[in-house]
């Protein structure tokens, strides 16, 4: 009889416990205080139901009540780091940062090899103004879990108010992987010089793939000069320069990288070919075949060129046309790559046919100009619709800095 009674008692306890847990889960699923209270009443010694009650209250913005529940739960299961974190967050919500820090300390104590405890404590210390101590924790978290590295860099950058040196001191980079991540971050923020500086400090991760990725980031961050510096493999190549201006080397059609050198648009309406049968000098020229529509001349072939701000430049090239029939003849235009503003353009190309002739034009860069884009345009003069037929060849593109020449005039 005693055995049966004991069994029944155990069964009842198990049922109450299980039912309390079920209610607790239900309470969290639907944010029901009523269900959470019922769960706690059924199993007051179960930390899980107190946690459930705490979560519900926290979600319903009742942090004072939630704090009590989390405190009970963490007393009942004091080795649970997640419980200490929840308690810490709730205490901070109530403005009790010292008590929150004490809870986070417990979380770190019971989960010293996990990143999330250090990360949470570091964030709290940051808000408490303990910046250096905060970064000790944040760095420890990022060292343990690499997915925290971008956030660590972002926080350091924000706290340093955009000062690369201070950010670097806060991050205390110790691996190539982290340094490369920092270099990319700086590039995206337009800090080209600092970014390239970090890249050059890499010991092992200076692969071509990483270099290309960083160049793309530098261009996206409008740090064109540094992007060019990193892009060039020949150090004698000094900006400004039009690369492959005579089309002596092959041009990559549908090039995936819009960095430096000629970029041929994949969906160009014109036929773009390197032609070895026609040239003014060297071995080849560029042939454009036009057969009706050419609404987007800028999306044909273009080149980004690194330049200096507040300078005057001259671009010269040779052109030959054959049966070019249109109301809006083509021309070459230059725009500021960063600001996307036109800086100048050449005269219209001769129509309908002409032998090779040289064209040149000058333009000035703005105070913020770091790079220009050389592209096609059309001198439409109100021609709409404006079909165009025929062929044209281009050769011998050259850019010169004529600032000194012009100022001496």
């Amino acid at each position: 009889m005693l055995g049966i009674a004991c069994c029944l008692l155990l069964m009842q306890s198990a049922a109450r416990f299980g039912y309390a847990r079920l209610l607790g889960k239900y309470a969290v699923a639907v944010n029901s205080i009523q269900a959470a209270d019922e769960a706690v009443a059924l199993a007051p010694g179960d930390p899980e139901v107190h946690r459930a009650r705490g979560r519900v209250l926290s979600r319903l913005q009742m942090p004072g009540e939630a704090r009590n529940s989390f405190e009970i739960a963490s007393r009942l299961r004091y080795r649970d780091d997640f419980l200490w974190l929840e308690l810490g967050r709730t205490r901070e919500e109530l403005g009790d940062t010292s008590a929150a820090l004490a809870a986070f300390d417990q979380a770190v104590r019971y989960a010293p090899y996990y990143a999330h405890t250090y990360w949470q404590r570091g964030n709290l210390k940051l808000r408490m103004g303990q910046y250096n101590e905060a970064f000790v924790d944040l760095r420890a978290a990022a060292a343990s879990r690499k997915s925290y590295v971008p956030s660590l860099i972002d926080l350091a950058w924000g706290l340093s108010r955009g000062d690369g040196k201070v950010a670097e001191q806060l991050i205390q980079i110790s691996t190539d992987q982290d340094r490369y991540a920092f270099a990319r971050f700086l590039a995206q923020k337009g800090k080209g010089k600092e970014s390239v500086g970090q890249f050059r400090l890499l010991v092992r991760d200076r692969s071509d793939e990483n270099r290309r990725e960083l160049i793309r980031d530098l261009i996206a961050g409008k740090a064109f000069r540094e992007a060019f510096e990193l892009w060039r493999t020949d150090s004698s190549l000094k900006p400004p320069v039009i690369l492959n201006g005579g089309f002596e080397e092959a041009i990559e059609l549908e090039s995936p990288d819009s960095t430096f050198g000629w970029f041929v648009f994949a969906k160009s309406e014109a036929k773009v070919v390197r032609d070895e049968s026609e040239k003014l000098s060297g071995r080849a020229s560029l042939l454009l075949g036009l057969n009706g529509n050419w609404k987007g001349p800028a999306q044909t072939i273009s080149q980004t060129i690194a330049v200096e701000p507040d300078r005057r430049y001259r671009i010269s090239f040779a052109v030959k046309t054959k049966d070019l029939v249109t109301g809006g003849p083509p021309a070459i235009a230059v725009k500021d790559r960063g600001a996307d503003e036109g800086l100048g353009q050449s005269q219209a190309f001769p129509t309908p046919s002409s032998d090779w002739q040289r064209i040149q034009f000058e333009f000035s860069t703005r105070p913020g100009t770091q790079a220009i884009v050389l592209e096609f345009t059309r001198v439409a003069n109100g021609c709409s619709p404006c079909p165009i037929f025929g062929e044209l060849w281009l050769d011998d593109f050259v850019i010169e800095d004529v600032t000194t020449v012009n100022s001496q005039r």
Partner: protein
Amino acid sequence: MSLKRRNGPRAIAALILFSIAQVGLQVGLAEPTITTTATTVLPQVIGRLTTRNNQPIQVNGLSATTGASILSGATLETGADQSAIVKISGVLRRPLVTGTVGAVEIAPNSKVVLTFDEQGNLKALVMFGCVKVSAERNATGEVAIEQGSLAKTDPASGGDLELRYDPGSAPAVGPGACKGPGPIYAAGSSGGLFGLGVPATIAVVAAGTAAGLTPLFFPDDQVNPSGPSN
């Protein structure tokens, strides 16, 4: 006792001492190296992120959840079913007190750039979506879109501002612009499982539990006293 015998214990003691020192040294070297080079950073106001149901949102393009620190100039973006609140507090210079500057609630499907400073200025630049800026006394809350500022709170009294902005349509500013009264980021109402409502769901859960436990309390011979048929 000979000189050799007298020196024996001394040599052993010296060896033990040396061994203990070695152990201590090894333990010391095994400790994690924590670099504590102090970096001078100016004190600043920092926000604290709380997300609905601890779901991650995007902060400066990176995933962030409750407990993350939000620095001035951060871009926050929420997706569908994601919302957040940023509480901003710190040492204010006007007047020089430690306190709360205010809070910004961000509704689902919103993108907002938050800027704030030690002067108590708190600005939400809404790219799209809906925000509610609550500024404390002595702080100035502001809602804006890229075209310019739309409203500011009075520092003498503080207050709330709500802004809904969808590019291509006119921005709506004012109470209830986001979604009726109440906090816009808070957890949803308790609808119960499958929308049955809380009492009904509790009843279902209770009935289910009771039904599950019935065999424990009523063994087969009690449920079917006639026993198995042949």
